[in-house]
């Protein structure tokens, strides 16, 4: 990740901890957000999409599953659409 993506990743982690109640110490850039990783589901993704839209003005409506894989992929998606 480049410098801009790292900054975005840090902000995304803050947002996820605040809005989804994830413990900060387990949320790394690489850990999968869904399934065996953090264990989020599609309902949590709605909150995540709303938080990202509000913070960065990036709409993730209709986006496939790939950008939601982990914080790194989210940061890369946001950085390329900001």
């Amino acid at each position, binding site marked *: 990740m480049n410098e801009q993506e790292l900054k975005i990743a840090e902000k995304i982690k803050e947002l996820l901890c605040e809005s*989804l*109640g*994830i413990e900060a110490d387990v949320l790394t850039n690489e850990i999968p957000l869904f399934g065996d990783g953090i264990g989020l589901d599609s*309902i949590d993704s709605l909150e995540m999409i709303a938080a990202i839209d509000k913070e960065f003005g990036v709409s*993730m409506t209709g986006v496939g599953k790939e950008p*939601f894989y982990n914080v790194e992929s989210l940061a890369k998606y946001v950085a390329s659409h900001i």
Partner: protein
Amino acid sequence: MRKGIKKAAELLLRGFVRVVWAIWTLLTWTAYRPRIVYEDETVKKRLESEPCILASNHTSHHDGSFIPQVLFKCPLNVVVTKKWYDKKAFNWMFRNLKYISIDLDSMSSEWIEKAEAALRRGESVLIFPAGKLVTDGTLGELHPGFLMLAKFTDAPVIPLISRGGYRIFRRQELIVGSEIAFDVHMKGRPSVVMREGTEVCKKQMEKMLNRQN
């Protein structure tokens, strides 16, 4: 020129769909003789004056037309699965009436944006939280998307029960419950908090389902 013809054709189709809908509404009222029961009389006025999220049981494909036809005074947008929305036989109608497509197999939040827009326009949204037909006499498992919609819009959630089996010339009953008492803004992970909310909603709907006249 072509654009003009296309636009005129769209307007014509929209007009045609509305006429078909009006005739269908008359047939519904004749064939199913709907009986609407309000558990809370204040909800009747609320439905006609403020946007609400209506969460209903789903025992027949008729539900998606019956409920908006019965509650015709309340402009309703119906959330329908993409599988049905995209069927050629129905898509022309869904596109020209107030139907919102939901893709249950993807993480797309398009439906929630459309439903939010409808609520902000002052229209209500009807959703079947089971996401499929449940014909075993239970409500099935309820999915919490409708509560997320309530969280994003602050619209009240009103439970509905349609019962009677859609038998011609027998009364089909629509029970309208009181607003679900659950704080959708409760702190915590939405997938956990909203599941608690669906349980609250389910209990209330089960009481309505088993209500004696």
